[in-house]
């Protein structure tokens, strides 16, 4: 007996057009230029002469329906009910009426910050952390909060040499932009997974688990007649991929987990090609709730950059101009053997020329 069901599936998201401000709809694809008016505010001018004003404000990204309702109420009041979010999780109000800018900002500043445009530090791309993910070596939302508390002045102003884009990820899976950020904070495990031999045979496929290890550290074995795996601890570099495919290999370790700090990545093609983020500080222990060593380290890097870089130089471009030896010098960060690459293409990072600074 078959049942007729009204269940709708595979309808996809609604059409974006219905969410576009009338001025945007009218000038779609016909914008002429934009101009930053002040931190957090810019105007886009169309060929028709029309203008649309954008006001950008911070969002912690991990928010409640209440927080959203606060935003929609402001949108109704000031931007004809139109708003959007950015690829960095800021909220943008799209205003037809210039006069609404300042009143909107005033109300926004009661519960958040306005800024994140131009030569500023925008919102931090980040991940789940201890709030939701089994894989995390640190928290994400908390780290973002404490770091942005320290750097808020760079969000609400445009006094940096150029954009500075930060990312936080709570484990090596890097659910975000860690591998290509001006500064990135990355949660790291530092001990091999421990094996729950009792449950492993039921929970995990042995061949998949063995195959998951990039360094062939996981090997099949049997204990008391039951198939399981063992880990060659000398080969393990704590990536956690085995845990991803096999829950019986937990890798979290309260004593040894922590964060590392990376610098000099970028995504845009402006001036220089996209660059990967490179290791700055190999390890800082987790120190919640406010991770003071981490915020100090990040702030130090930001300030040294702010002081030394030339206009339009992103972090990585500045470092390339002055050289890595000078970067370590100026920031006072110690250069260690951990900075020397030893993975797949390590050899391509070695200095294969005489060009060097002293």
């Amino acid at each position: 007996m078959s049942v007729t069901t009204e269940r709708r599936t595979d309808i996809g998201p609604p059409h974006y057009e219905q969410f576009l401000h009338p001025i945007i709809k009218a000038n779609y694809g016909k914008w002429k230029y934009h101009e930053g008016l002040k931190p957090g505010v810019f105007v886009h001018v169309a060929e028709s002469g029309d203008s649309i004003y954008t006001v950008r404000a911070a969002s912690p990204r991990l928010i409640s329906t209440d927080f959203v309702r606060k935003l929609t109420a402001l949108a109704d009041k000031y931007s004809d009910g139109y708003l959007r979010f950015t690829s960095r999780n800021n909220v943008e109000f799209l205003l037809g009426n210039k006069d609404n800018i300042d009143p909107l900002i005033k109300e926004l500043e009661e519960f958040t910050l306005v800024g994140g445009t131009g030569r500023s530090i925008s919102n931090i791309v980040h991940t789940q952390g201890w709030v939701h993910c089994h894989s995390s070596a640190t928290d994400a939302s908390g780290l973002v909060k404490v770091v942005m508390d320290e750097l808020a002045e760079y969000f609400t102003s445009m006094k940096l040499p150029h954009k500075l884009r930060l990312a936080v990820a709570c484990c090596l899976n890097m659910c975000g932009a860690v591998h290509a950020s001006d500064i990135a904070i990355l949660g790291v495990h530092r001990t091999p997974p421990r094996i729950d031999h009792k449950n492993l045979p039921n929970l995990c496929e042995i061949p998949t688990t063995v195959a998951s290890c990039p360094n062939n550290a996981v090997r099949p074995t049997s204990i008391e007649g039951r198939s399981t795996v063992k880990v060659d601890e000398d080969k393990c570099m704590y990536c956690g991929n085995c845990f991803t495919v096999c829950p019986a290999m937990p890798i979290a370790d309260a004593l040894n987990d922590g964060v590392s700090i990376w610098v000099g990545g970028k995504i845009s093609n402006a001036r220089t090609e996209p660059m990967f983020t490179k290791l700055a500080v190999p390890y800082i222990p987790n120190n919640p709730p406010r991770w003071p060593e981490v915020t100090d380290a990040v702030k130090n890097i930001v300030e040294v950059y702010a002081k030394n870089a030339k206009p339009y130089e992103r972090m990585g471009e500045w470092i390339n101009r002055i050289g890595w030896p000078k970067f370590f010098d100026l920031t006072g960060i110690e250069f260690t053997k951990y900075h020397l690459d030893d993975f797949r293409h390590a050899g391509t990072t070695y200095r294969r020329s005489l060009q060097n600074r002293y």
Partner: protein
Amino acid sequence: MSDDLKTPLLDELEKGPWPSFVKDLKQMASKKPMVKDLLRQLEKSYRDKRGYWKHGGLVGIMGYGGGVIGRYTALPDEFPGVSHFHTLRVNQPSGWFYTSKALNELMDIWDAHGSGLLNVHGSTGDLVFLGTVTDELEPTFRDLTAKDWDLGGSGSDLRTPSCCVGPARCENACYDTLALTYDLTHKYQDELHRPMFNYKYKIKMSGCPNDCTAAIARSDMGIIGIWKDDIQVDQAAFAEYVDSGMDIQGSVVDKCPTGCISVEGKEIKIDNSNCVKCMHCINTLPKALRVGKERGAAVTIGAKAPIVEGALFGSVMIPFMKMDNFEDMHDLIERIWEFWDEHGKNRERIGECVERIGLATFIEGIGLDPVPQMVKQPRDNPYIFYEEYYEEES
């Protein structure tokens, strides 16, 4: 289980100028026991310096293989409110544009069925509904679809495509990122909802090489706007920049990566044949310079995070293609999926697959001709697999 919420460590995160998620969550906690236990577990994590979540199990929406991330606390006795704490990924609209009305409706749904917490948005682009129990998944889905919303991707499927604001509010857009995102998302609903790939496949669309969606770093396939002809120049507007006293030499001329800009008097000259479309001059002089008129997109393949062979940026597969209609794009995508299906391994991203089998084999496999724009440089090692050779005449 006592009812009080003591979070001395988390309370430290209510301080400071940046908006506090703890403040927000604590307000929610008074309405939602689930959020209260979330905060209590989080407080414990802050004390113990470790997370307490278990690996996701198999939960989901009927007929869908993706869109839900199952999550359970490892300490259900202590924190029963989060014994289930599943995530729903709601497919965002192109460009993350909303009206208050639509957002409020979404919030009503989530207040009714879940924790009332969300990520706006997830790193892939979805509107993430964070935390509900298994029994509420179907009802949430029913209410969502009733209001024309659907789920995004997770697992080994097409992940929710996303795009930059593009032509909606940016003068640099070289093609309609919003339209393409809408088109692909709808065309590939099956691939999005039913994991059938070797691994995840992400598509991100940026309207120009500024790449405001990080397509080159975070998408298996990046579709990034580009132009082919000359940068459009408004010399009068340029002269105004000169008159304003701006340091054109230092800020623009010296920063051009190929040194192809020169200034004579108040006139700017660009050697477009040597311009690599980096965008810097256009970014810096938005009133005077604009992208060219012959617009389209470049397509990159294979970007990803470091697990397991190291991070990859996307590599150029098509240096330029017209974007007047999207049929060529469908065709390309399907040829790639076919090839990946045939040659890829389980849990091997397309980028790793190309690394393993080589770009030459890959492009041959999907029917593209080699062009020098695909590489930084030709090979520098002599290990060539010559294919044609001559047989001895006897």
